[in-house]
């Protein structure tokens, strides 16, 4: 039986125009924000900042070297961190209690102490072990443990402890049915991890890992305390000589912002790559 047609007794609104909500609050907020930014810009423009110094030192050779060092140290420390993180996460999730214990101990030790302390320990390793190696094949620790190597080890090994937890969270996010299906087609645990679990875990892992990557760009500045010549160290060296403290700090800040601005879209590209097959996409 068709429903009784109520429309006959209601006003005919079929031809009326729809008017969307006016977001007055948003316009007000934009106005306030623009005013604040203008005020801030003016303050910096008339403040005690010699902007032409910022321009002059922006691409100074020492700053360029620092930029180069910051970049490769970020990549190197993250590569080491991710490698150690994956190994540690796999150990932590293994059925072998010895491997589990080692993984937990590593995470505990390196998450439990400040990075700057770890950097100083690596840099001063010669105080504990004057020589490294065995008998004939040994070298003086001070010759080997350069600021760069100490920074790489300190930052990378510390990062591995954090990354392992990110990777582990990603592995835990994959349904146990996936492990079972992988086993059912004759895969061993490691092959299942590589072919089935990790590709799916990547989706979950990339956003926090991108976060860690961006964190590492800035964490490299801590290596300035052990004389590693990254951007901040270069900027400091210059302002020790010419006293343009704020100008050179602004130079360093702008470079950090540029690096991070380039990394963010890269992360989005990676996320899209690993979203294959997810939730009816494409």
């Amino acid at each position, binding site marked *: 039986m068709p429903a009784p047609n109520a429309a006959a007794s209601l006003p005919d609104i079929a031809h009326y125009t729809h008017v969307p909500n006016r977001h007055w609050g948003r316009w007000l907020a934009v106005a306030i924000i623009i005013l604040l930014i203008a005020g801030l810009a003016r303050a910096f423009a008339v403040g005690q900042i010699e902007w032409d110094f910022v321009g002059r030192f922006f691409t100074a050779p020492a700053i360029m070297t620092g930029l180069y060092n910051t970049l490769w140290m970020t990549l190197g420390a993250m590569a080491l961190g991710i490698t150690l993180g994956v190994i540690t996460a796999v150990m932590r999730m293994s059925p072998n209690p010895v491997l589990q214990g080692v993984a937990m101990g590593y995470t505990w030790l390196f998450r439990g102490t400040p990075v700057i302390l770890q950097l100083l320990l690596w840099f001063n390793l010669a105080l504990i072990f004057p020589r490294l190696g065995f008998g004939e094949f040994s070298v003086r620790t001070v010759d080997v443990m350069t600021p760069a190597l100490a920074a790489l080890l300190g930052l990378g090994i510390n990062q591995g402890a954090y990354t392992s937890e990110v990777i582990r969270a990603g592995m835990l996010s994959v*349904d146990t*049915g*996936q492990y*079972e*299906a*992988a*086993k*059912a*087609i*004759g*895969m*061993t*645990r490691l*092959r299942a991890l590589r*072919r*089935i679990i990790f*590709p*799916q875990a990547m989706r979950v892992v990339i956003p926090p890992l991108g976060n860690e990557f961006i964190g590492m760009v800035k964490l490299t500045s801590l290596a300035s305390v052990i004389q590693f010549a990254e951007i901040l160290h270069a900027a400091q060296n210059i302002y020790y000589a010419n006293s343009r403290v704020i100008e050179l700090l602004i130079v360093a800040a702008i470079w950090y912002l540029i690096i991070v601005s380039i990394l963010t879209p890269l992360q989005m590209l990676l996320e899209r790559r*690993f979203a*294959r*097959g*997810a*939730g*009816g*996409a*494409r």
Partner: protein
Amino acid sequence: MSQSSTMPPATMPLVAIVDVRKKFGDFEALAGVSLDVRAGEVLCIIGASGSGKTTLLRCVNQLVTIDSGAIWVDGELTGWRIDGTKLHALPEKEVARQRLSTGMVFQRFNLFPHMTALENIIEGPVQVQKRNRAEAVREAEALLARVGLADKAGSYPANLSGGQQQRVAIARALAMKPKLMLFDEPTSALDPELVGEVLAAMKELAASGMTMIVVTHELGFAREVADRVVYMDRGAIVEQGPAAEVLGNPQEPRLRAFLSAVLS
């Protein structure tokens, strides 16, 4: 593989389950189950949830390790190597190799979501069995056609219906050329209108002579396809026999109660 771990296949059923016991904590999932499955036989296991039927199935391909007893598949003792009077646990690689003789279809499909239907099917043949990729692709396409999904090779699981996903899962298991197929409630997670297409694929497989152990609630399928029906309750086999007898003329009161509950 030591000599004593294998038996001449002619004298053995394809699957021999001997007094298998399994406890999860205090819960006795399997309380001494013995069961033989001949090559080419289609066996349906029915029973209420918690009766141990899924656990038994998962023991056969070692997704669950048994506490005691023995399971022989294709003449080979699963999970253990016999050495004199001792049983040594097999290393993971050997267990993985033994699983190759069985294919498994899961209740929740468990397709790999980051791979297309075709990639799901060739994953085992190419990565595990190290077979030629082009040949594996040809076989996968034939398998997809066999389950009626020739046009879905490039689809990701998320873009397939439950019934289509389960049929891809059947093709994925068949791609390993198993001697035995295990089905763990393959239609329980499906919308009612999709059950038929999966059962049709399973019927076709049964008709082709595949040995199948099917844990199911589909009594109609059991009646039509099964050579033998096994009813389990509280971790034990309570009644078994030809489908028509077990389902048509149940002897055990527990089975009668179960059947009337399922059919009502």
